[in-house]
């Protein structure tokens, strides 16, 4: 029996004995997510509530006994956001109902434990879409997790990040009374949840990208879009391995094609070479990989419009690139001409690169930078990796980017990181290097998106929060969570007595990057 026996019994009264456990075998099963650089973390109590009211009751008990709570959606995050050492781990996947799909007014209301794949599957039946399809783990990842992690995913080139498509949320606050509130138009009991602004300050934003620190999301109200039925995959390989050209082309594509692109991923040359090397079924003649590959998913409501979009892309790419097909380096890949959009494409796109045999741990450093700075940041990263080559755990492989994913408004996600041998001995050095690299990126001007524990702490360590900002942040947290029970440790907030400035690390080699992101 857990040390929190009183709390256990009271929570059990709320959810029933079937949905609460403190057995070791259960704790072990929840000890990790896609984040093996972290040590295993065992919660004291794991609970699967079935309604906001049950969550509110559990929050009240946690406040009474001063037990921390960590909310957990699909458990597919890479940054240590959804595991708990001690306390209550709250598995939210029972909140899995799609409440309303309003086809006429283009919004939906869902419980936050619904997976992206389940929602998108329902929407596709009605020729609708959420636009951005949620994270790469969308078969498992939940709507709530996507909001808490401010995630990007397939569709982000056109539709932006997940929170940008959120009209409001219902949240259980971690305060002693476990208040349940709604934000945006959903807070007006007379209104449909059609928009986010114009009712009060944008309190939805407080809960977007919060890594589960500000409230427990129970419902989300999301924008819907008509789903363009015509989608094609097209790829081009740059003739030179120059990131200056990447920036220039991204700018031109954004200026001249924009909404025609559901996605643009730029896959660096070395990653394409890796894919070529990993292919089990290779063509007899090896293709020479000269530069990064631009992978487009283009979409339109009319095939004639799609033809125009494709022609425009062809024109823009013509001078610097040649058409490319993944099938030409891996015969198991479907040729672009036969490609058909299925959810397996976005939702299994990254998985297979996370754990290569022999299986390794992966420390993600995904972040956003302006399109115009891609070449500069790539050079800085190469220099950082070169200087710190001995600081990485043995046999690590680091990449500037697994891919660059264009977002609206002139910036892109640099999805990258490094891996290391998956052994307990390597976890600490991997974790140290992970923090160091994030601090370096923050100081070169990177804005990350999923923050979890490792990245949120590293941001604080980089010292970019001004004292005023840090105080404001803490004050806001105090308003919603006066007993500090929700998701401790993230953002290096361990208690209200703790000064997060104490965690600033001043040890970076590329110190000159503090001055604005360039050498």
């Amino acid at each position, binding site marked *: 029996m857990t040390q929190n026996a009183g709390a256990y019994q009271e929570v059990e009264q709320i959810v029933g004995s*079937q*949905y609460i*456990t403190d*057995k*070791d*075998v*259960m704790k*072990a*099963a*929840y*000890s*990790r*997510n*896609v*984040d*093996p650089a972290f040590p*295993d973390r065992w919660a004291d109590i*794991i609970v*699967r509530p079935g309604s906001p009211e049950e969550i509110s009751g559990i929050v009240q008990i946690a406040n009474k006994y001063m037990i921390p709570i960590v909310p957990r959606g*699909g*458990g*597919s995050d890479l940054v240590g956001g959804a595991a708990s050492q001690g306390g209550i781990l709250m*598995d939210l*996947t*029972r909140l899995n109902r799609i409440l309303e799909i309003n086809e006429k007014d283009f919004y939906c209301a869902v419980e936050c434990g619904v*997976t992206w*794949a*389940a929602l*998108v*599957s*329902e929407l*596709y*039946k009605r020729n609708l879409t959420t636009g951005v399809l949620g994270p790469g*783990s969308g*078969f*498992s*990842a939940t709507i709530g997790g996507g909001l808490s992690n401010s995630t990007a995913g397939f569709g982000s080139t056109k539709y932006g990040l997940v929170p940008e498509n959120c009209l409001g949320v219902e949240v259980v606050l971690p305060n002693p009374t476990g208040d349940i509130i709604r934000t945006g138009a959903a807070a007006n009991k007379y209104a449909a949840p059609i928009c986010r602004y114009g009712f009060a300050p944008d309190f939805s934003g407080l809960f977007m990208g919060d890594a589960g620190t500000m409230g427990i999301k129970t419902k989300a109200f999301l924008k819907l879009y008509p789903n363009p039925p015509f989608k094609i995959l097209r790829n081009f390989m740059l003739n030179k391995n120059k990131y200056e050209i990447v920036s220039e082309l991204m700018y031109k594509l954004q200026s001249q094609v924009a909404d025609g692109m559901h996605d643009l991923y730029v896959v660096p040359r070395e990653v394409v070479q890796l894919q070529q090397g990993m292919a089990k079924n290779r063509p007899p003649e090896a293709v020479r990989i000269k530069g990064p590959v631009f992978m487009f998913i283009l979409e339109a409501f009319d095939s004639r419009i799609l033809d125009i979009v494709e022609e425009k892309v062809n024109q823009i790419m013509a001078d610097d690139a040649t058409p490319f097909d993944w099938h030409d380096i891996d015969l198991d890949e479907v040729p672009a001409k036969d490609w058909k*959009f*299925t*959810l*397996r494409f976005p*939702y*299994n796109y990254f*998985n*297979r690169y*996370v*754990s290569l*045999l*022999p*299986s390794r741990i*992966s420390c993600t450093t995904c972040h956003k930078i302006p399109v115009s700075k891609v070449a500069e940041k790539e050079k800085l990263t190469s220099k950082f990796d070169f200087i710190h080559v001995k600081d990485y755990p043995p046999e690590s492989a680091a990449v500037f980017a697994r891919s660059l994913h264009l977002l609206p408004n002139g910036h892109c996600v640099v999805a990258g990181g490094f891996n290391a041998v*998956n052994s*307990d001995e390597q976890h600490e050095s991997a974790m140290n290097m992970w923090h160091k690299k994030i601090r370096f990126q923050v100081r070169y001007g990177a804005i990350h998106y999923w923050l979890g524990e490792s990245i949120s702490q590293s941001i604080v360590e980089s010292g970019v929060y001004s004292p005023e900002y840090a105080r404001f942040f803490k004050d806001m947290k105090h308003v919603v969570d006066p007993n500090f029970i929700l998701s401790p440790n993230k953002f290096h907030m361990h208690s209200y007595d703790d000064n997060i400035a104490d965690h600033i690390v001043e040890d970076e080699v590329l110190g000159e990057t503090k001055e604005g992101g360039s050498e």
Partner: protein
Amino acid sequence: MTQDQGEEFKHLSKVQKYILQCIGCGDCREATDITAEPPKSGVCVAREHSSGFEPFFGRGKMQIIRSVWEKKLPLSKDMAEIIYQCPTCNACSEACAYDMDNVELYEALRGELVDAGYCLEKHADMSRSLVDQDNPYGRENAQKGDWLKALDVPVKRAPDEKAEVLYFVGCTAAFTPELQSVATSTVNVLRKLGIDFTVLADQEVCCGSVALRTGFCDAFESVAKKNAALIAESGVKTVITSCAGCYRTLKRDYPEYMTDFNVKVMHTVEFLDQVISENKPVLKNLGVKATYHDPCHAGRHTGIYEEPRRILAQIVDLVEMPTIKENAKCCGAGGGVKKAFPDLALEIAKSRVKEAEDTGAQYLVSICPFCHRNLSDALNALQSPLIMIDLIELLDQALEDESK
């Protein structure tokens, strides 16, 4: 792997390469995909019919296996209670982005649990019966040929009477009165098609599937060796079986455990599909509407999807359920679940039956006596108008007996 780990976990050490391979993405939880062909509507039936905590689907089990392997979690009775609530349908493996056979890992953990004395008593009884009486039902194995009494013509008896094909009946069809028609229909169909075959009858030993699936590897080896010797003595070239569980075991597991086991193994339906396409016998369309349930051991475990459908398309009006082929929902009986957790098996089967009812079919067809049994229990519990039938029984009705 340390030497220590290898010595302590002899079953897990065989699959240790894959223990850390699971990244924990959770695709094995409930992946839904309207764009897949066939569409996917959830993954893990055990999770759907339990409290839904992580250990009730693939990812949680993989974390438990890792924790055991890394000696962070001891084997325990609690663990066994959960790990055995999995029908080992392998839908999790199908959902996985990696080339991983999850069930192989679960069975390795079950092996460790058995060796450590944490098996479930009902499975232990079954295993003892297997070793002592050559079948898991605690019956005198001499009764295993009783089904032959319903036939009005003699059947060759292996190993003494020779033929190229051995029909391996399996314990469930041989011992269960309501399922003996699977065996008799198989004999009828083979005879109508002019196939020379033989059966082991009361000499047939259980294939050992139940033991292997529940972690009793020694018991499995004991019966597997007896069967392999009988099959070798029979001198047959091909073994056919109408049981999906026997089929998976004879086809995949025997060669792995006994490198000299090299006889060709086919499911009866796979065999007959070939015969029918070559000989083109007259098949009567029965004029009934039927839906087909893919048994996990014939489907996800061994890839038989099209053969039964090709036959059914010729003899009935085949209507498909929403989840079929590699994405089919399991009936819930396998992996020792029906024996140790009959209520769970029944609840899972009820869901499958409801899916079948929604097609408007009159018949629910399968090619596995064990699925047949569990789904029949669900039909009875639901008082469903659907009729459970094995494909071979329908084929028997559809084939003219040209010898008469």
